C-alpha cells in the first residue's frame, strides 16, 4: 500500500484548520444526503440549511476529524462489493444444499489496526464478508465466528485489514512474521 498520507495520527491534537476542512467536507456530504432525501425539491432547503449546519456541528463534536485517504476508499468499494456478493453466494449455496455443508468454529484475530474507528469499521465489514462474523471486539483480538473452519481465514482477514488500513491512511506491518 502506498497511500498512507500521514502515519500515526491517532491521539494527536488537530489544528483548527483541519477542523474547518473536515467540517466543510462533512457539510457537503450532509447537503448531498439532504438533496437525495428530499428528491431535490427547492423549497426544502429553507429547512435543510439549518439542519445541515446543525448536523455538521454535531458530527464534528461527536467524531473528531481523522485521517483518511480517498484512494484507499475508492479502491475499497469494488473490493467490498465483490467480496460481499461472494459472501451472499457462499452462504446461499450452503443454505440451499440438503447436506448443509458447514462446520462452524471460533478464531481470534490479533489486531494490527489501532483501536477506535478503524477497528469498529473492520468489525462491521468482517460480518458482511464471506464466511466470517465478528463476535467480540477485544482490546487486542477480534473474535471471529467462521462458517467453515477448514478454510484459510487468516490470510483473508489480513487482506481485509490491509484494505481498511488503506482507507484510514495507516501503514501496517506488512506480514506478521514469527510472532
Amino acid at each position, binding site marked *: 500500500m502506498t497511500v498512507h498520507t500521514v502515519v500515526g495520527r491517532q491521539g494527536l491534537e488537530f489544528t483548527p484548520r483541519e477542523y474547518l476542512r473536515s467540517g466543510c467536507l462533512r457539510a457537503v456530504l450532509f447537503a448531498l444526503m439532504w438533496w437525495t432525501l428530499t428528491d431535490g425539491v427547492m423549497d426544502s432547503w429553507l429547512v435543510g440549511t439549518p439542519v445541515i449546519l446543525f448536523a455538521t456541528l454535531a458530527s464534528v463534536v461527536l467524531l473528531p476529524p481523522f485521517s483518511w485517504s480517498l484512494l484507499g476508499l475508492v479502491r475499497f468499494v469494488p473490493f467490498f462489493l465483490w467480496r460481499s456478493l461472494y459472501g451472499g453466494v457462499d452462504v446461499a449455496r450452503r443454505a440451499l444444499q440438503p447436506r448443509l455443508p458447514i462446520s462452524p468454529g471460533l478464531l481470534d484475530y490479533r489486531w494490527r489496526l489501532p483501536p477506535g474507528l478503524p477497528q469498529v469499521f473492520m468489525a462491521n*465489514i468482517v460480518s458482511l464478508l464471506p464466511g466470517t462474523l465478528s463476535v467480540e471486539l477485544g482490546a487486542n483480538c477480534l473474535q471471529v465466528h467462521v462458517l467453515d473452519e477448514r478454510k484459510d481465514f487468516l490470510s483473508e482477514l489480513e487482506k481485509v485489514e490491509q484494505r481498511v488500513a488503506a482507507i484510514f491512511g495507516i501503514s501496517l506491518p506488512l506480514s506478521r512474521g514469527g510472532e
Partner: protein
Amino acid sequence: MTPSDLLSAVLLIAGAAFFLAGTLGLLRFPDVYTRLHALTKADNVGLGLVVAGLAMQAESLAGAGKLLLIWLLVLLAGASVAHLVAAAARQRGIKLWRR
C-alpha cells in the same frame, strides 16, 4: 421490453433468490451464530440487488441516490446488529453448534 428493463428484471429476480436463501438459512441453520451469517449476508446482498434493479428504473438521480442511501443504512444496521447479537449471545454462554 428494452435491454435495461431486462437487466433490471434479472437483478430483481436474483435479489429475490437471495432473500429466499436468507430465509432458508434462518430456518435450517443449527444455532444463533450460523443463522446470523445467513441473515446478514444473504439479505444484504438480496436487498443490494433489488436496489440496483430498481435504481435502473428510477426517474431521477436523487431517486436512485435515495435507494442507495437506504441500502447503506440497512447494511450498517445489519452489520452492527449482527455483531451486537453475536456478542450478547456469547456473553450469555450460548454454545456453538459443532458437527
